[in-house]
């Protein structure tokens, strides 16, 4: 789900991290505790906790915000404002296709074959856009960035 891209990113930048995985059985209590402690600012995961330069524990939520933070910290957000904008546009497009995947994979649906057919139509429409992004090279921008991680995760999910 939405935690996979941050996992990939944390591994890619070589950070040691501990992962806490929730299940349907453990989530209700974990959510309550997380909200009370401030870790789960919006009652959702993924969430990330880290120690800042002053030794203070900081928590973040929202998968894209986490990716953007890690990218800024590790120089994986493009070389200039034009590349940063290009990355953000791609990330937005990834989010749009992921919504359509979610409508098929996570929502209550009446007929699976209809949902699958709709999803396949969306893939036919969206994949050429991403193909164009990679037409000049193997990365979304001139060098490896977090956009590559997000695009890989999307394709791997689809």
């Amino acid at each position, binding site marked *: 789900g939405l935690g996979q891209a941050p996992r990939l990113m944390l591994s890619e930048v070589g950070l040691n991290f501990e992962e806490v995985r929730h299940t349907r059985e453990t989530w209700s209590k974990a959510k309550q505790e997380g*909200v009370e402690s401030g870790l789960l*600012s*919006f*009652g*959702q995961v993924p969430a990330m906790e880290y120690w*800042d330069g002053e030794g203070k524990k*900081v928590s*973040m*939520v*929202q*998968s*894209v*915000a986490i990716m*953007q*933070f890690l990218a*800024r910290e590790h120089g994986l957000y493009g070389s200039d*404002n*034009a590349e*940063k*904008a*290009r990355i*953000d*546009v791609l*990330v*937005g*497009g990834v*989010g*749009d296709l992921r*919504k359509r995947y979610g409508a098929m994979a996570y929502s209550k649906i009446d007929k699976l074959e209809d949902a699958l057919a709709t999803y396949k139509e969306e893939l036919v*429409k*969206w994949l050429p*856009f991403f193909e*164009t*992004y990679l037409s000049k090279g193997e990365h979304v921008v001139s060098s490896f960035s977090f956009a590559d991680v997000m695009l890989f995760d999307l394709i791997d999910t689809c």
Partner: protein
Amino acid sequence: MVMTFSYFGIMAKGFGPLMCLENHGLEWEGKAYTMDTWPEMKKSGVCPFGQLPILECDAGVVAQSAAIMQYVGRKVAGAGGACEKEIAVSDMLMGLSEDFWNAYSKVQPTLFVAKKVPLEEVAAFWATTIPEKLAYVESFLKGKDAFTSSGITVGELALWSVFHMMARITPEFLDKTPNTKAFYTRILNLPGTQKLITGKTSFGELPSYFIKAE
């Protein structure tokens, strides 16, 4: 270079970027597309994902409303946040605004789709889903009417924009969350916001994309 913002003449996904452009004092020209003029623009290939809004600026053609708002956040000093922690908060709120938009657009009728879900589901959205989501926002404000030192980071304006689209349908929806209501009222009264919502930009009146469920 004067930037050009292109969208439809309605209050929907283009509204957040317009709020950021206006409230951060950027000079921009507007191009409003209609259902008649949009097909040719779509076929032109200018829009990276075949959608609006787009902003044509010194970073190229920037599509996706969040990407446009992030561009403003980098273009204007402090608009994205005054420090790394505030940038992270602005980014989190940008994501949260998308969550609110997704939940809202899943159920609320629009100018183009008169009914998406049964009326009971629309009622449950306003009675249950929204209060649950707003409780987190209220708590995150920590008793203030702003999430950051400026109170107008692009993430805050993104969240406000979705709240305003919701307030046009259900004006009282923030009544039980006083800090969130104060956040909403503060940004509502900003000169840039007022210029936009009173129809004084080139996009004019901006009728609502969302309509009441009946």
